[in-house]
């Protein structure tokens, strides 16, 4: 009963958040003369889009590392699988020759978007429906492919523990990346070159006949997909399966003695985590408007691991919070550290290209040394308690 009420509250909260995002990105269209920050090209929206994508991946990693206690570093590999699946399935057939020109066209002469266009019509409303349907199904398939691969790799790898599991999954991610860059697979993966031309976030903007934007949805879409996915993960964590995952994290032997099948539950967590990482990878491809294996290096995994650690291992809201802070810092707020500044003829010391990363590293070291629990530890943000803090305290009776 209590749980249901809480779920309902979360649901309302997410709806409000999504409406707010739509409002935010359309403000500049309706009210001219707003500050630069709210214009569509502002870094604000870049940060919001990227953070929405990353928060999904961070939460999916937290499901595995924080809630099931499996230290896996394969996230970038599963993202890559998702990104390529999405890209290959949605590049319009007309575009394929152009994208795959080095390999004389694509071996995979099919596009989900085109398939739906055949059903609903090319332009106008039909075109929009087929684009939404096509990319939506491709997103789910992206997750499925990542999930399938994680299942196959999980059979041998999940018998390993802690560091060994991390090394094995990291190795897997690197192998996948190398395979996707292999020239022999060029007709499918376009080798080391990027795949372009598929629907991206800005394709979801509703445009008028002359190409002018009527309603911007390019920030809303990643928020919507991420919010739905994170909500699903939260529901899973709060279910009896989630409890079993946490018990495995806390004490494997005791969990097994309670009749919890270790392998089955570890596999379940691994596959679900990879499924959402795959969707996250597809979203990432939409965000950068291309899919290229080069982007999905272990550096990306570490970045996400960092977010999870900063947010708190075992806290979904911590991961989300940390993602927005991290992305905002790295893409926006700390950018000034990379540009040389002159005050009159005085050059401010240290500020030059790359200094941002130095500051970043120091911040991370401070966090790891002094706040090893991260922002949230393994707790969740409790909005009820937060509200109470701002209310006047009732007189305590002695």
């Amino acid at each position, binding site marked *: 009963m209590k749980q249901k009420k809480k779920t309902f509250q979360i649901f309302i909260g997410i709806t409000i958040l999504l409406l707010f995002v739509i409002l935010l990105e359309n403000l500049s269209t309706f009210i001219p003369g707003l500050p630069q920050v709210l214009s569509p090209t502002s870094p604000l929206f870049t940060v919001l889009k990227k953070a929405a994508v990353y928060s999904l991946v961070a939460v999916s990693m937290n499901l595995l590392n924080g809630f099931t206690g499996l230290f896996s570093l394969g996230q970038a590999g599963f993202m890559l699988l998702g990104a390529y699946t999405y890209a290959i399935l949605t590049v319009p057939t007309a575009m394929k020759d152009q994208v795959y020109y080095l390999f004389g066209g694509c071996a995979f002469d099919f596009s989900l978007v085109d398939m739906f266009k055949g059903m609903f019509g090319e332009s106008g409303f039909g075109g929009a429906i087929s684009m939404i349907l096509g990319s939506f199904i491709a997103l789910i398939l992206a997750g499925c492919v990542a999930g399938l691969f994680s299942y196959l790799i999980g059979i041998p790898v999940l018998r390993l523990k802690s560091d060994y599991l991390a090394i094995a999954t990291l190795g897997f991610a690197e192998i996948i990346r190398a395979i996707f860059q292999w020239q022999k697979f060029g007709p499918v993966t376009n080798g080391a070159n990027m795949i372009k031309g598929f629907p991206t976030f800005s394709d979801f903007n509703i445009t008028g006949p002359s190409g002018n934007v009527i309603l911007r949805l390019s920030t809303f879409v990643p928020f919507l997909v991420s919010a739905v996915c994170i909500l699903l993960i939260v529901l899973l964590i709060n279910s009896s399966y989630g*409890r*079993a995952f946490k018990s495995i994290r*806390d004490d494997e032997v*005791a969990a097994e003695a*309670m009749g919890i099948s270790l392998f089955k539950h570890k596999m379940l967590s691994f596959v679900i985590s990879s499924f959402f990482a795959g969707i996250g990878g597809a979203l990432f491809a939409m965000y950068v408007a291309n899919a290229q294996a080069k982007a999905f290096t272990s550096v990306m995994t570490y970045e996400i691991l960092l977010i999870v650690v900063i947010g708190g291992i075992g806290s979904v809201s911590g991961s989300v919070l940390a993602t927005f802070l991290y992305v905002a810092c790295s893409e926006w707020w700390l950018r000034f550290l990379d540009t040389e500044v002159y005050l009159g003829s005085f050059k401010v010391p240290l500020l030059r290209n790359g200094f941002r990363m130095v500051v970043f590293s120091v911040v991370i070291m401070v966090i790891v040394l002094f706040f090893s629990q991260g922002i949230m530890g393994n707790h969740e943000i409790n909005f009820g308690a937060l509200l109470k803090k701002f209310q006047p305290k009732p007189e305590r009776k002695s």
Partner: protein
Amino acid sequence: MSEQVLKIDNLKVRYGGIEAVRGISFDVKAGEIVTLIGANGAGKSSTLRTISGLVKPAEGSIIFEGEDITAKDPTAIVSKGLMMVPEGRRIFPNLTVLENLKIGAYLRKDDLEKDIEMVYGYFPRLRERSWQEGGTLSGGEQQMLAVGRALMGRPKLLMMDEPSLGLAPIVVQGIFEIIRQINDAGTTVLLIEQNANMALHVADRAYVIENGMIAMEGTGKELLEDEKVRAAYLGSSSS
């Protein structure tokens, strides 16, 4: 005599080249409290871990309610109604008390309300602490939680591995009192103890294990009065 619940026949357990259990045979009848006592490394815990499926036996058979459960996986064994309270309590430190209890009933799909009430009935302290994380409980409370968690699985046979380990004597007495009550309520109990005095007082029958073999058996009372047992395990020799 009542029916046999558990029958162990010539059980052998090896870890690598070391034989920890060297041919143990015993049985547990419905409604009994049976205890296995013995020194460190005698093979008590290995026997228990083998029965619950955490360790695979090298030889021998384990029959539970007429069904062979030798070398079955723990999930199958737990679902038949054999629950274990592991050595050293092993509660889940980051889960709340209530969550810990619910994990005990993980394989059950029916309503848990009644069982949670029952456990809180045995251990009122747990009700007070139901939203506290398991790791913040005291040792005695953790042992209560471990017992409660196992009870949540509605065991036909409850196996306990050293419930007195690391607890103050007064707390140990409380735990044994509860074991008695649980047994009176109809649950068969297989108890493993180093605290032979407490175990023999509460047990209907007892087996003494030495070097992986059964050295002696009898009712709790018989063994309490036995000279050899008194000298070796009760520390009250005549000298």
